[in-house]
């Protein structure tokens, strides 16, 4: 017997759902990136604006184009993930990067880093980092000339005056035989580095701004504390050991933490949920791996900055990490006992 006009819906339980959704998560991340964005505009003005807008718009465009015409699926640009990829790519490049290079970077980030694997959720490597590393290797000159912050550069774009980053200075200096102590005098103070008064890519400037955004995400339970903490602690310990061994050749931990893409990478790139491990235990292993690799590349590698490479290398290990760091079963029965 059926009720008149009553067509009931049948589905498996549960019949209620939490208010979580992909959009909410993505938009939280965008909000968390705003402090860093404001700092970058404050320091690099016009250049930052152009680079950020180009990266975001081209990333969104390429995702829409590829989904609509090549994959022939419904475009998902409204879920916010392309915007984040664009923003993070922008944060990883200097503010005087030519527009055409940015666009190529977006295409590689979205097309190769994300869509070729099957779209959101299926990629192995962090898309923004794939784009960034591609640009770094293909256009080394443009990708390694950083405008100095503030002053005249606020209204200039590709004609901004450039200077070296602290990491670059250290790398060159140590190669030339100078000691860390001598080099540190040429660099901005720790406080300046903390608030961003130094050369670098758009998002790498202010550890303070990144920290605010990162803590916001942890508070809102979008990310957990495991990855950022394990990276920072590992870097501090590893760099600390090196610094204690030979203070003239190796910079101190605080320097390592405040310079380069370490903070940005720890809170926003390594914590990308698609490319990071699934359990707290796995996340810590992941973070320790990144910490070791980034210090190793910075100190012994050819590049002054190793965060992007460190994260990409550990991304490749995530499936293996997942296999060996399963969550603890309730009522786990150990093989040789109760």
């Amino acid at each position: 017997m059926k009720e008149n006009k009553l067509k009931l819906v049948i589905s498996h339980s549960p019949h209620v759902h939490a208010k979580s959704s992909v959009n909410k998560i993505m938009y939280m991340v965008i909000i968390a990136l705003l402090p860093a964005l404001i700092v970058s505009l404050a320091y690099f003005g016009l250049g930052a604006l152009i680079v950020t807008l180009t990266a975001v718009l081209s990333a969104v465009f390429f995702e829409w184009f590829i989904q609509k015409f090549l994959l022939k699926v419904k475009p998902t640009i409204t879920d916010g993930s392309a915007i984040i990829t664009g923003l993070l790519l922008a944060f990883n490049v200097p503010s005087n990067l030519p527009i055409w290079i940015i666009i190529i970077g977006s295409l590689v980030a979205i097309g190769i880093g994300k869509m070729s694997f099957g779209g959101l959720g299926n990629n192995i490597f962090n898309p923004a980092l794939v784009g960034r590393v591609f640009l770094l290797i293909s256009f080394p000159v443009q990708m390694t000339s950083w405008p100095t912050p503030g002053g005249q550069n606020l209204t200039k774009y590709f004609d901004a005056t450039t200077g070296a980053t602290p990491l670059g200075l250290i790398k060159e200096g140590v190669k030339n035989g100078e000691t860390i102590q001598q080099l540190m005098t040429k660099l901005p103070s720790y406080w300046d580095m903390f608030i961003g008064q130094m050369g670098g890519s758009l998002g790498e400037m202010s550890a303070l701004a990144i920290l605010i955004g990162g803590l916001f995400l942890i508070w809102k339970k979008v990310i957990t504390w495991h990855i950022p903490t394990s990276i920072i602690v590992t870097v501090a310990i590893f760099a600390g050991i090196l610094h204690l061994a030979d203070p003239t050749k190796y910079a101190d931990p605080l320097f390592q933490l405040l310079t380069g893409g370490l903070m940005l990478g720890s809170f926003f790139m390594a914590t990308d949920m698609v490319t990071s491990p699934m359990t707290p235990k796995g996340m810590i292993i992941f973070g320790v791996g990144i910490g070791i690799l980034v210090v190793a590349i910075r100190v012994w590698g050819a590049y002054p900055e190793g965060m992007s490479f460190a994260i990409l290398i550990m991304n490749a290990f995530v499936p293996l990490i997942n296999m060996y760091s399963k969550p603890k079963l309730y009522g786990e029965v150990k093989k040789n006992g109760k």
Partner: protein
Amino acid sequence: MVAVKTFKKGGVHPEDNKFSADKPFVKAPLPKMAIVHLTQHLGAPAKPLVKKGDKVKTGQLIAEASGFISANIHSPVTGKIMKIEKAIDASGYKKDAIFIKVDKEEIWEDGIDLTTDLVKDIPYSPQEIVEKVKKAGIVGMGGATFPTNVKLSPPPGKKAEYVIINGVECEPYLTVDHRSMLEMGHELMVGTKILMKALGVDKAIIGIENNKPDAIKHLSEIAPEYGNITIQPLKMKYPQGGEKQLINAILGREVPSGGLPIDVGVVVQNVGTTIAVYRAVTKNMPLIERTVTVSGKNFSNPSNYIVRIGTPIKELVDFAGGIPENTEKIIAGGPMTGKALSSLDVPVQKGTSGVVFFASEEAHRKPYQDCIRCARCVSVCPAGLEPYLLMSLTEHQMFDKVRKEHVTDCIECGSCSYICPTNRPLLDYIRLGKKTVMDQIRAERAKQQPKK
């Protein structure tokens, strides 16, 4: 002040929507035709003892347990057996049921004490208690419907240390256990003592979530009269009412994977079951009625009823005020583990604890997307499983791997599907994987039997 506890691993926090928490029980009228299914419990269906044309009295045994894990079924009404044929139940399929046309006059079976005064003396031995519980056809009324007499008979070598009474009621909307604790608190206490005597334990703990402060207060006040029964308030978290999670919350112990609560010395019983045990042992009352909450966000009169088993849900709903406008989904049970009904001819059974209406805004699922590997499902799973992986393996039909991933430990609480940001039907596939693996295990066991 007793410290508030909760279980360690996983859990989610759905809105509790306890709209009917302050509504005392109302007795629902007898149905016109009682539809009593032969399978209202885990285990083998009961065997009918009556045939078409027989006249039966209320409380008369009409089907008997067939096998070790099975239960007796008694007539909930006085009337005439019209037919024994298949009728739809909450499983969504038609199963054998006894149809009883209800007489105007009620005649009770001999031996049943209809008085309502409290009986505190239990002059029975443990075996006699278990026998009375078995005779009365009591099964777990929290929804699991496991035959209670089997739970009260631990296998040789296993001894119970604690009795835990499950007053958690973590499912949204449902308030029958809450009201039972308030209105039948003394019966609950005596029932607890009966269970303690049957199992030979001297310690009992009643776990209650702290969204029921009045129940905690009331039971804490009367508990001292009854000996060693403590009340343990618990922090609200779903699925605390699952017996494995409840044991972990109250005692900190973990039931071993593949094992039972008795392995850690505990027997857990629902509040409703305990009160039914009291009635069975002191008044010889078989299980013929139960408490049901009828509720919903768009329902004008969320309330609690005492309903005879076999009452078609349609008749209960009409008595409660009728289906509200715009209803597109009706659940038997609670929204996290309940079954969506395809027909209101489904009768109230021994395990039906609620009827919840969902309006069109909340009745539909959203389309789902690829897994974004956010690991929320892993962090909320109370069993410590990886739901995203179980779904993926089941989709690809890799059942050997599904089995290795401990799918049989899944308690089907639904926390994973609840939390997934891309709305993936995790539990749908996990259920399929679990069933396939259980069938494999059963087939393997059956193959081994002849050798024994």
